[in-house]
């Protein structure tokens, strides 16, 4: 499974055998697996203040996982047992939330399990069959998530399927999208409380004018004419929603938050809300030497009264350069990628309605002492997410993947596993979910991180 991407050197140090990843996925350093045991992935992550180059010729004070932005890639496989030793070397409490992963409550990294400065915590979970896909990790302390992610704490996760239906000859690229704002000295710029910009950020979520793909501004990728590449795209931005297009190209959209679709879908654009992931196939179709740009196209996610003046500006993300001779490899993309068992509406025991306004769900802000919703382990339920205001709100549920089955009363095209559903202004979406395997107190919230920090979040207790 790792044959194309992964070469390993084995060293013996004391009583430990340490595997050091010498290769990477699209430039992402892999987290070193400390375990020699097959099926066990044991890694160490430390969050700490650092000073890194995000802008050319400038060092910026940041927060980083293992000294990197994005943090190193966690690459695991279905069936693996994962052990993550986390050390908090920040001056404030934090957590690591394994966004989209189906895991025990105590390993969810939610605000219920803060890790104090100087302390450590070990997250453990098993990777369930059928969950292969693209995920990410980020902090989730109450009221501080936007700040900590904005300072640089986020990283990617790839869960591999030993029987992945796509050819393993496809070049696999992980593109973590983020944006940030800097002052004239190159410091990360957060608006000061009481200023006009602070209120704008509260309403829209904090957007930056500098866009990053992984750790670079406008990086360059290469492709051959005729080649097919598999791109995994993560929206790690606190507020910016990406409408992604590749000039002159059509994507084959093959996967979402929880892994592959049943059927590939051709599309010219992908809309990726905060926290969401997409897997696409990019088909090289241009002459050697030509360059095309992956762009963030204008996307109107804003209330008219707070919409930024430059919202309709197209922003460039990366350059795709055509190199070499045309590829002669014949790539066959299966018509069916996998079978997704549809959750059964006849088993639904309750319907919950979430009414979202800015900063609140059902007119309430987050209270760590309050249980907003209660459900029984194993139950299947419908959640109807209503957006009552004129801007998009991406709704994220922890712990369980769900299937959106309806938008504005219309059925969706195919069942997909998702953990985040974007609901545009004055629209609604309904999903069906089954609370499998794990009891606990699970957060649900808007994934515009500033909204989450304001308390646009609640607690579902599964007993």
């Amino acid at each position, binding site marked *: 499974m790792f044959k194309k991407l992964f070469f390993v050197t084995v060293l013996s140090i004391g009583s430990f055998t340490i595997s050091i990843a010498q290769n990477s996925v699209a430039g992402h350093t892999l987290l070193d697996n400390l375990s020699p045991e097959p099926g066990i992935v044991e890694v160490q992550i430390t969050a700490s203040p650092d000073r890194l180059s995000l802008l050319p010729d400038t060092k910026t004070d940041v927060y980083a996982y293992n000294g990197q932005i994005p943090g190193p890639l966690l690459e695991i496989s279905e069936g693996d047992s994962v052990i993550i030793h986390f050390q908090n070397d920040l001056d404030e409490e934090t957590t690591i939330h394994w966004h989209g992963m189906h895991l025990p409550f105590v390993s969810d990294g939610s605000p219920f399990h803060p890790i104090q400065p100087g302390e450590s915590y070990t997250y453990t979970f098993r990777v369930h069959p059928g969950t292969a896909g693209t995920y990410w990790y980020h902090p989730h302390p109450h009221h501080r998530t936007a700040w900590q992610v904005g300072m640089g704490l986020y990283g990617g996760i790839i869960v591999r399927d030993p029987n992945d239906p796509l050819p393993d000859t496809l070049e696999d690229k992980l593109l973590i999208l983020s944006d940030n704002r800097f002052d004239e000295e190159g410091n990360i710029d957060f608006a000061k409380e009481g200023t006009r910009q602070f209120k704008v950020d509260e309403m829209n979520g904090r957007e930056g004018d500098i866009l990053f793909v992984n750790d670079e501004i406008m990086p360059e990728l290469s492709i051959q004419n005729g080649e097919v590449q598999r791109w995994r795209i993560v929206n790690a931005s606190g507020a910016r929603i990406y409408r992604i297009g590749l000039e002159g190209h059509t994507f084959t959209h093959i996967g979402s938050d929880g892994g592959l679709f049943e059927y590939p879908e051709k599309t010219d654009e992908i809309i990726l809300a905060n926290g969401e992931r997409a897997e696409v196939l990019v088909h090289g179709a241009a002459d050697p030497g030509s360059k095309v740009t992956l762009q963030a196209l204008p996307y109107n996610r804003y209330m008219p009264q707070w919409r930024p003046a430059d919202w309709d500006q197209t922003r460039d993300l990366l350059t795709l350069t055509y190199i070499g001779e045309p590829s002669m490899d014949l790539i066959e993309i299966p018509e069916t990628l996998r079978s997704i068992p549809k959750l059964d509406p006849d088993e639904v025991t309750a319907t919950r309605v979430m009414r979202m*306004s*800015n900063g609140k769900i059902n*007119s309430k802000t987050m209270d760590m002492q309050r249980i907003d919703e209660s459900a029984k382990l194993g139950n299947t339920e419908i959640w109807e997410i209503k957006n009552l205001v004129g801007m998009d709100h991406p709704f994220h549920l922890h712990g369980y993947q769900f299937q959106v089955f309806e938008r504005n009363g219309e059925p969706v095209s195919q069942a997909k596993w998702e953990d985040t559903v974007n609901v545009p202004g004055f629209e609604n979406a309904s999903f069906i979910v089954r609370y499998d395997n794990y009891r606990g107190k699970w957060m649900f919230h808007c994934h515009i991180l500033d909204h989450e920090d304001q308390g646009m979040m609640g607690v579902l207790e599964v007993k």
Partner: protein
Amino acid sequence: MSNVCKGLFFTITTILISMDFGGSGLVYGQTEVHVEAMDHAFDVDAPNELPSGWVTFYFSNLIANNTHEISLVRLPDGVAHEEYLTDYMTAWETLLWEYQEGVVERSGISDRVNEMLPGWAGGTLYPTTRGLTSPGKISERTVFLEPAKYMMVCWMKTEDGIIHIMEGMHWEFTITEDTANNPEPNPESRITLHEDDIEQDWEPEIGKHTFALEFSLNPDGQPFHNNIHLVRMEEGTDLDEVNDWLDWYRIGGLRSVPPVEFVGGVEVMKDGATAYFALNITEPGDYAWVVFVPRGQGVYKRFTIE
């Protein structure tokens, strides 16, 4: 219980029966808009297009934690809903910001906002506003609406002084050329606002009550007042303080948290037109009608419900 009352408490869907008689555009049935207040949004159960005629707004504030209102805005021809939220509201929000920051004095408000408002702002009409409704209360208003584009908005302010419209508390709708044949409301009681007195033919008691609000006119033919609010008083409630708080232009005016509980009411911006509203009194106590007088002495009528 009257039909209106049943509608207020038990009807959760919009009843809109449309019958086409050879293209007459005549619509039969009640036109109802059910609105649930949230902090800070309206959850509306109604289509975005309604026939012209009498429309009843049922306003429930059972979930939100703040006092809210319904202001109805009729937009000038050719002005889009969005322009109200951008050009128009940006001017007011900027004004409020500058005013709260001390950049603009109260005496300079008109000049400053007129500098910023779009040219069409003068054509904006507010058929009715206010009807302040506190958490736990339900109120109602029936208003005759002519074909045009409208906004339903809440002009209240948050604790930090942001207008609820800016927070997202607005809903856009259009009154079409179709005509609803709903009859004019026939309320149980009438209230007439005189210069220094509130005249009513109503015996206060617990329950749902419907009112017609009428206005006596000054020698120039203008109404002395244009609004009324029912408040439930606590011991020590100072109605002059309530009157001050009702002044939107004061920095703390119409800003959470209000000094008193509001049960309902209405404000009419169209001179002399009778207004229809309903409210529900659920518990005994000391109450007062409050007629807000800007920068003056409010007019009050106190009463007790056993």
